[in-house]
């Protein structure tokens, strides 16, 4: 059994003292050569060394909460050190012991240090006053160790006098410590008394310590035994001994978490004992080195042992919890219980005990979960490896199920599910892979094609085999290697949630491969890789000892955050990493995924997303800029940079002259202008070139540029500049470029180049001037006789063909990219505009009202109003009764080829609702039901609805090729297995119709009444065919029908009013009546406002001021917004000034009335009326037996039973 896992090792002089830092990965080692080493054992680096003791150091201890280290040595001194990185130094030294100091320890809450010495005393020091506050005397030989009790005011000490003593120091806490100095030693004894003297060891005792919680003490002695002692309030006695060391035992410790004792000794072994049984569990042996000291980490499963030539840090068991993720649930093992953790709700439940599986000291190694069977397959490394297959209970029980009840066990080093009814087990010795069924019997045995150390799931019926230098994808069914990748031994495998990618993790590498291993990339890490999980976007997130990192599919990786302690990632969701910590407790880490999201977007050329990230995040800094530049996206990097110099560089790189010239202005250095000029020249942007040349006073180039662009005025300006600068060369050039012969001659004369001046004048026919030059040179014609005659120059200044100077035609198109456009449209600083504004109902409606107020102009664009009605609120889903699986009591005795009853027949039998009959294709019964229940007589309009519903109630599949496809029936409740209860699926739900109704409302707000009428009709028709399954749903259904009716009626009335206003403009009276009735329809407040405002406006126009005022008052009750309130008040005031009505109408708002949906006339309370059997709309009696005009489907006044309630 090898469960001692070495995490760190160092070589040094003999180690006599060791101490773990309580929170940081630091270990202090006291060395025999006088130095104290401070190690970071996780990173394996020596952090510091303290060398101030003279002679061997034996004692070290960290303060639990402060950055302090105490040490003691053979120089009799106790030193206290500041260990903060910046000021590591000795703070003070405690003098007093008269011989070697053996151990030191800080008290957990008081400012005390306890020390022991070969001077036979134990001393307690106050580290604040730096005085000795107590001396415990009584031991009659060297005191080898003394430790405070973790809670009580007790001390336990061990001595060469063969005793262990327990001291009561409660007096120390009460009394003010004596500061009497060296003279008053006697008084100390009043504060501390020996409580028990434990005698039993036959030789000197090296170490004794309290149990962290129980009243137990263990001691380690030169008599080669470890003794366990128990204390009560009044006495203490020996319980038992652990025998096994065959030389002096140096230290014995309680395991901080488990019922174990760990000891080490001069027999070169570290041993682990069962505390309860006092039996040895395991022994770890070193070849040559005696062990001198052992230390346990206070919280973690971590130990350190010091020996003759160094130290080791080790774990006793694997900490990696066994776990498996299925959808949103994590199945994991903590303290040998299989638990589940729901990522969404955080519900953490215990399901199964696996305490009896394998060695009780060894935690399970892996867990494989089978969702189809709800079974777990667990492996453990004890007993040479074994597995256990158990199913999880369906529900959490009071008493947790124990796996030994029905678990199936077997031996094997690695075991995983490969299909829902198969699992594979690796027998490492024989290199056989067994495929077993759920009864654990072998179905198939496969010889591993390579030396296999571990197997992992490789997709259905496939395995990933981890070998020493390769990893193999292997198909079990075909028994064939599908692919092989070189990799160090793979230790863990993580599949992406869609099964498209897999991460193969070894100690220092991660291979990301696709599902058939045809593509892969490798990442190397120097720090050990611990775990990983896939992000939903296909990014692999992994943890090392000290970091959480990401890795993109093409292999780019980077750090997301640092970790104090290793964690095991289980799932990544958005900004949250779910993980298990070292004690297998679920935790979450929130991180900022911006960086990798951005890089991913960059890889995928998803510019929208990149822009969104740039705008909304604080993604900045050199690393991202360098990354972008390196990946060839300087133009994007530009948007991150504030620094002018970098902006300039990037702008040049991506050819963004605008930014470049702007930044150049700010920088204003000659070299920048030059480079800008170069780049601008390349792109043909001569304006910027010109500006750059001007800035650097590069006259020559400027002149040449003007020549090249044909800018004659500028050239002449350059001439003037050259004149003032008095630079003959420049003057000459400019004159030449400008074709200015006189100037040229003048320059040459000025510099005394008379011959050239003469010839120039001569060849250009300027004879007089030539003569003048001759004269000024003091010559005559005769003197230049021998000069040949050149004739007249025919050279002319080239004409300007294209006036380039006015054009700026960049020869290199930089092409405006997405980012430039985005930048132009709005600055990056501004937040991103929400894609869709879900305005609240009131606001939407009131702006719609303004459209209405414009005296019914046709309004084209609709208001996006659709909130208000809380249409998304859940309508209380119907919860069916618990499904019971019943066997189908079928026509067992029928001959084989006789067809059985179809599912649709059951549907028809099981439901009295028309819609279910439609689903079943039984249209005739469906129509009869609608007729009987709701008085429907005209079905023509329902045909598309019937067919659409029927169409989506069945689906087809052909399992065996070329056979006629099977018709499959879609059930409402897939879990329902009893044919006497099955019902068809829901094709149209109440929720979807509620949504459609709201669409109608939107049309009303948008003043598209004809469309609104169509929408309401369609909703009311569809409501005939909605499946209902509870009283609550039936109530909602009725509400929807009523709301639909009121709107349909209202809209119809208003349409009629508009028709009359147009076709019979003189019929003001009818128009007013209809406007008034419209306000009587029960509409939602925003729409009721519309009706009222319309009425106010129509009545005002007809000079019915009194009525208008009454509508305005009603309008006010609906609390419209301020503008409308003002208008309404005006109307009321006008009505009060002039309380008259010009037109007399039939409208008595004080007697309740219904509106006849056919004639649009009031039916006052008390008058007789007939009703629509479906919508309950009212009609005048004369319409009885007619077809309803609202949806044109029901017979008015027909007797109908109403909807049955089958639930």
């Amino acid at each position, binding site marked *: 059994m090898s469960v001692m896992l070495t995490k760190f090792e160092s070589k040094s002089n003999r180690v006599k003292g060791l101490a773990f830092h309580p929170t940081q990965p630091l270990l202090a080692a006291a060395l025999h050569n006088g130095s104290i080493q401070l190690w970071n054992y996780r990173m394996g680096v020596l952090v510091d060394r303290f060398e101030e003791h003279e002679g061997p150091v034996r004692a070290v201890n960290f303060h639990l909460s402060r950055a302090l280290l105490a040490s003691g040595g053979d120089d009799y001194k106790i030193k206290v050190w500041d260990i903060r990185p910046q000021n590591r130094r000795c703070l003070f030294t405690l003098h007093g012991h008269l011989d070697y100091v053996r151990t030191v320890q800080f008290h957990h809450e008081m400012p005390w240090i306890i020390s022991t010495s070969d001077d036979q005393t134990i001393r307690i020091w106050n580290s604040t006053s730096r005085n000795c506050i107590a001396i415990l005397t009584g031991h009659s030989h060297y005191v080898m160790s003394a430790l405070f009790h973790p809670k009580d005011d007790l001390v336990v000490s061990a001595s060469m006098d063969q005793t262990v003593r327990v001291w009561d120091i409660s007096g120390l806490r009460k009394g003010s410590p004596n500061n009497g100095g060296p003279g008053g030693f006697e008084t100390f004894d009043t504060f501390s008394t020996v409580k028990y003297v434990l005698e039993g060891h036959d030789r000197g005792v090296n170490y004794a310590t309290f149990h962290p919680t129980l009243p137990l003490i263990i001691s380690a002695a030169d008599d080669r035994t470890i003794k366990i002692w128990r204390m009560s309030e009044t006495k203490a006695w020996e319980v038992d001994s652990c025998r096994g060391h065959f030389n002096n035992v140096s230290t014995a410790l309680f395991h901080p978490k488990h019922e174990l004792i760990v000891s080490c000794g001069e027999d070169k072994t570290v041993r682990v004992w069962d505390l309860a049984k006092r039996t040895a569990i395991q022994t770890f042996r070193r070849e040559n080195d005696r062990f001198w000291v052992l230390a346990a980490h206070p919280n973690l499963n971590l130990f350190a042992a010091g020996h003759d030539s160094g130290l080791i840090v080790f774990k006793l068991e694997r900490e990696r919890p066994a776990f498996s993720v299925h959808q949103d649930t994590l199945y994991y093992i903590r303290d040998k219980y299989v638990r589940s953790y729901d990522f969404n709700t955080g519900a953490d439940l215990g399901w199964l005990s696996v305490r009896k599986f394998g060695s009780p000291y060894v935690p399970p190694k892996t867990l494989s979960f089978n969702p189809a069977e709800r079974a777990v397959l667990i492996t453990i490394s004890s007993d040479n490896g074994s597995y256990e297959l158990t199913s999880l209970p369906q529900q959490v029980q009071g008493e947790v199920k124990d796996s030994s009840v029905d678990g199936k066990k077997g031996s094997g080093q690695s075991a995983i599910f490969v299909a829902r009814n198969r699992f594979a087990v690796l027998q490492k010795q024989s290199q056989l892979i067994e495929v077993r069924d759920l009864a654990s019997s072998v179905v198939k045995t496969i010889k591993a094609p390579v030396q296999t150390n571990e197997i992992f799931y490789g997709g259905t019926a*496939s395995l990933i085999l981890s070998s020493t230098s390769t990893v193999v994808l292997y198909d079990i069914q075909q028994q064939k290697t599908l692919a092989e990748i070189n990799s160090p031994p793979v230790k863990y495998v993580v599949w992406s949630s869609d099964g498209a990618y897999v991460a193969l993790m070894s100690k220092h590498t991660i291979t990301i491969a696709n599902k058939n291993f045809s593509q892969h990339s490798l990442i190397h890490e120097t720090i050990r890789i611990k775990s990983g999980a896939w992000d939903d976007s296909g990014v692999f997130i992994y943890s090392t000892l000290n970091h959480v990192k990401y890795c993109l599919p093409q292999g780019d990786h980077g750090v997301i955050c640092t970790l104090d302690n290793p964690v095991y990632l289980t799932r990544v969701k958005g900004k949250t990493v779910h993980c298990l910590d070292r004690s297998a407790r679920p935790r979450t880490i929130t991180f900022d995924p911006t960086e990798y999201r951005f890089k991913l977007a960059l890889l995928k050329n998803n510019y929208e997303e990149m822009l969104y990230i740039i705008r909304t995040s604080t993604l900045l800094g050199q690393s991202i800029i360098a990354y972008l530049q390196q990946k060839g996206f300087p133009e994007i990097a530009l948007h991150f940079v504030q620094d002018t110099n970098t902006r300039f560089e990037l702008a040049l790189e991506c050819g963004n002259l605008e930014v470049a010239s702007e930044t150049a202005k700010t920088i204003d250095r000659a070299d920048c202008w030059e480079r800008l000029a170069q780049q601008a020249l390349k792109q043909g942007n001569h304006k910027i070139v010109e500006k750059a040349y001007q800035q650097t006073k590069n006259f020559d180039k400027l002149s040449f540029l003007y020549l090249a662009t044909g800018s004659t005025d500028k050239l002449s300006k350059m001439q003037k500049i050259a004149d003032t600068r008095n630079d003959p060369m420049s003057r000459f050039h400019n004159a030449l470029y400008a074709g200015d012969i006189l100037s040229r001659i003048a320059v040459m004369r000025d510099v005394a180049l008379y011959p050239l001046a003469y010839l120039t004048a001569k060849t250009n026919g300027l004879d007089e001037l030539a003569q003048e030059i001759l004269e000024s040179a003091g010559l005559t014609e005769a003197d230049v006789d021998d000069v040949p005659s050149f004739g007249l120059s025919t050279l002319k200044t080239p004409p300007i063909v294209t006036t380039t100077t006015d054009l700026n035609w960049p020869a290199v198109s930089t092409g405006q990219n997405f980012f430039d456009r985005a930048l132009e449209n709005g600055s990056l600083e501004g937040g991103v505009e929400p894609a869709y504004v879900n305005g609240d109902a009131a606001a939407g409606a009131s702006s719609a009202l303004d459209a209405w107020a414009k005296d019914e102009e046709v309004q084209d664009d609709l208001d996006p109003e659709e909130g208000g009605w809380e249409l998304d609120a859940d309508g209380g889903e119907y919860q069916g009764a618990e499904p019971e699986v019943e066997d189908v009591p079928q026509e067992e005795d029928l001959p084989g080829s006789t067809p059985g009853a179809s599912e649709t027949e059951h549907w028809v039998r099981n439901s009295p609702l028309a819609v279910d009959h439609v689903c079943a294709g039984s249209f005739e019964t469906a129509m009869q039901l609608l007729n009987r229940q709701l008085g429907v007589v005209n079905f023509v309009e329902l045909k598309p609805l019937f067919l659409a519903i029927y169409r989506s109630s069945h689906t087809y599949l052909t399992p065996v090729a070329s056979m006629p496809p*099977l018709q499959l029936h879609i059930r409402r409740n897939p879990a329902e297995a009893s044919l006497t209860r099955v019902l068809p699926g829901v094709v149209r739900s109440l*929720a979807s119709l509620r949504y459609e109704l709201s669409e109608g409302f939107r049309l009303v707000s948008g003043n598209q009444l004809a469309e609104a009428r169509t929408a309401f009709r369609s909703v009311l028709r569809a409501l005939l065919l909605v499946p209902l399954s509870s009283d609550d749903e039936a109530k909602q259904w009725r509400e929807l029908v009523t709301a639909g009716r009121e709107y349909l009626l209202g809209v119809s009335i208003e349409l009629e009013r508009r028709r009359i206003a147009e076709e019979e403009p003189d019929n003001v009276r009818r128009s007013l009546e209809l406007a008034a009735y419209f306000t009587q329809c029960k509409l939602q407040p925003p729409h009721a406002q519309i009706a009222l405002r319309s009425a106010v406006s129509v009545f005002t126009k007809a000079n019915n001021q009194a009525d208008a005022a009454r509508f305005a008052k009603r309008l006010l009750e609906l609390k419209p917004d301020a503008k409308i309130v003002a208008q309404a008040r005006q109307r009321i005031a006008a009505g009060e000034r002039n309380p008259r009505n010009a037109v007399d109408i039939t409208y008595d708002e004080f007697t309740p009335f219904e509106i006849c949906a056919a004639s649009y006339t009031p039916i006052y309370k008390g008058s007789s009326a007939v009703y629509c059997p479906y919508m309950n709309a009212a009609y005048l009696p004369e319409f009885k037996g007619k077809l309803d005009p609202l949806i044109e489907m029901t017979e008015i006044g027909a007797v109908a039973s109403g909807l049955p309630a089958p639930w």
Partner: protein
Amino acid sequence: MSVDSSELYNVKRQFFLGSFKSLIDMPLPDPSSADYIPTLVYKARAQIATDPAEVASLIPADSENVALKAAAALGRYVSTSEDAEQEAALEELRDLAVEIEGEDVEGSQRDKNSVLVLAGTAFARAGDVEEALETLLVETEDLEAVAVIVQIYLSINRVDRARKEFERAKQWAEDDLLLQLIESSIGLVATRDGYSNSNSFYTEQLGNPSLSSPHILTARGVTRILRNEVPEAKSDLEESLEQQKGDAETLAASVVAAGIDSKNKDEAEQLWTRLTTEHPLHPLVVDVAQKGDLFDEFCAKFTVPPLAVPAAA
């Protein structure tokens, strides 16, 4: 039962998981190999499932092998709509089914089994359930025949029989993919577990790295429809349609899914129009058309009174 070679195993698996295209593209083994005839039969059947007209070119005209002859006959049956030709093909299959009982027939036991399966398939297509069952039901120990039998039972709502046949096959059949396929088909018609077995089966097959079949994606999509997981179903079906443009089964399932409680009615109608034009003979199209006629018929039975209109004012 003899054990198939790895190649043949793969061929068979591709066929039953509907990976027809890669099966058709697969090279044939050497004609002298024992795998030659079975491979050719599966290839022919894959061809029939995708483009039956091409089957003739696949099978050597002079072949005397009964399985190949049966495959060719089924191909003819499926590719024609002429009654006479169909009847001739059925007749040939009937003859072959009888012929294999005799001694001197060219073909192995496996080939003979294939004849029965192919004949049974044709009879089932022709709607002659009785004959199909009679042909196949010789207490067979051929799992492929069981698959056809089970599907026939399911099509006539005889889940009891289908289950019985499956349970019986479990006794002698090996742990076989086909057996799982049969179980999953039964599960789709008469679920006892909320379709989770079928769903797991298809999901599992999709996870198989050495196979890819849009047919399985469609099957899972259909299963998801049955599980009322409509958005997930749509995603499967869309992916499948991308891989096999215009596949009737996938298109039909997409129509169904699009129509379930959808806010976008046009989507369903567009898909429906596509299905009715591209596959006018798909059972869904035929069935809905029939229902439409029935609707008109029933509709006419109701007397519609005149619309309530107010007398002219």
